[in-house]
């Protein structure tokens, strides 16, 4: 299938869902990660810091009104069977104490050693939100982001230059072109889209990377 016509954010969201096995309790960050709740496998438990565990898909337009259930981005969501809501205090305590398995967050920069910068950059500092809390407690941090920023500058870097959100916290990076594992502070390519060459990928990736012997062609189910 030709994925070049698919919205890259949509592509990334579907790929995120593949990396969340049933049973995972996952916090999805604002932006692209949040979209993954439309595609997660049955048995994945989506938690949001505003106080809900068991977020299901976004409602179909016009089908029903969802007044009381929102994700952390403020979008209406339908709770799954067995979902519960709680206050923000319990929600962050749950994350700080390691009860949430995985988080998927966006990034301004992510470094080969797992450092994450996603809250402030020169000239724009809108605040760290809940990201520092989340990465300090959640067991596995996945970054899901466009490969480059709006100006075409690589987001995957040797070393973050922006202020950090977390130190050596990221273990997997998902972009619209590839998936990188982070092993011993080094990037390993796990998946690559067919429509980008390895040379091109190296060009738009600021950090060096190895190619896994098991490196797969990156597709998503549609």
């Amino acid at each position, binding site marked *: 299938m030709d994925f070049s016509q698919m919205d890259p954010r949509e592509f990334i969201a579907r790929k995120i869902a593949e990396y969340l096995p049933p049973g995972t309790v996952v916090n999805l960050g*604002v932006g692209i990660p949040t979209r993954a709740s439309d595609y997660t496998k049955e048995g994945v438990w989506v938690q*949001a*810091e*505003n*106080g*809900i565990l068991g977020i299901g898909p976004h409602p179909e337009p016009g089908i029903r009104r969802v*007044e*009381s*259930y*929102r994700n*952390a981005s*403020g979008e209406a969501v339908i709770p799954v069977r067995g979902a519960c*809501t*709680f*206050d*923000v*205090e319990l*929600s*962050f*305590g749950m*994350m*700080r104490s390691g009860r949430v398995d995985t988080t998927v967050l966006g990034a301004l920069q992510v470094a080969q050693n797992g450092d994450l910068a996603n*809250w402030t950059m020169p000239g*724009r*500092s*809108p*605040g*760290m*939100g*809940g*990201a*520092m*809390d*989340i990465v*300090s*407690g959640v067991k596995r941090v996945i970054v899901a982001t466009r490969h480059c920023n709006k100006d075409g500058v690589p987001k995957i870097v040797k070393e973050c230059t922006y*202020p*950090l*959100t*977390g*130190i050596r916290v990221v273990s997997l990076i998902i972009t619209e072109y590839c998936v990188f594992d982070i092993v011993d502070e080094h990037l390993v390519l796990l998946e690559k889209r067919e429509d980008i060459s390895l040379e091109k990928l190296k060009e738009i990736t600021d950090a060096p990377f190895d190619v896994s012997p098991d490196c797969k062609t990156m597709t998503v189910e549609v």
Partner: protein
Amino acid sequence: MRLGKLYSPDEIVRDFHDGQTLVLGGFGRYGNPENLIDLCIESKARHLTVIKLNISEPGYGEAKLISEGVVDKIITSHMNYNKEAMSLYEAGKLEVEFCPMGTIAERLRAGGAGIAAFYVQTGMGTGIEKGKDIKEFDGKKYMMETALTGDVALVRSRVADPLGNLAYHGTNENSNPLVAMNNSTLTIADPDMILEIDEIGIDKIATPGVYLDKILEM
């Protein structure tokens, strides 16, 4: 604790004064005490400090106060959704103190629970720990954060009774229970519905009335 905590908008409007620190329930655009915010605007109180988890887009909650130009300072975790607030901040017309969201929540809880300060790992190594008291527990470093309270706490709830007992619904609960029990000097609720005593149900009350001073009756 007394019955008769119900107050009219005309009475509540007199509770807002210049220079107050407001502690606001809500999460971004949702679960805000909108009626109380409107009364605060009506009061013409200025030079306010606002404490809230995260700032809403314009048109909701504390964003309405910011648009009115009556906010001097904000303590929050982010203002990503509010270009107006960001512009004021970047122009130096609005003082902003950023604090991680979970840490703000915990600081509000500490204020209401008689806890002076506590140690969290959140943000260690990112630079936000600078100037803070650092302690090691089990080989890991934690920073000290202190309790946060204010002059007036504004709470949105689904229901209230005349004793001030409150219950919430869905994700509109968010920070409201914390703000209600935060031990601000004056705590006011903005419920969707007011029920008779005992109608909420003994097991369904989330915030005991002892924390509430006033209930807005529209």
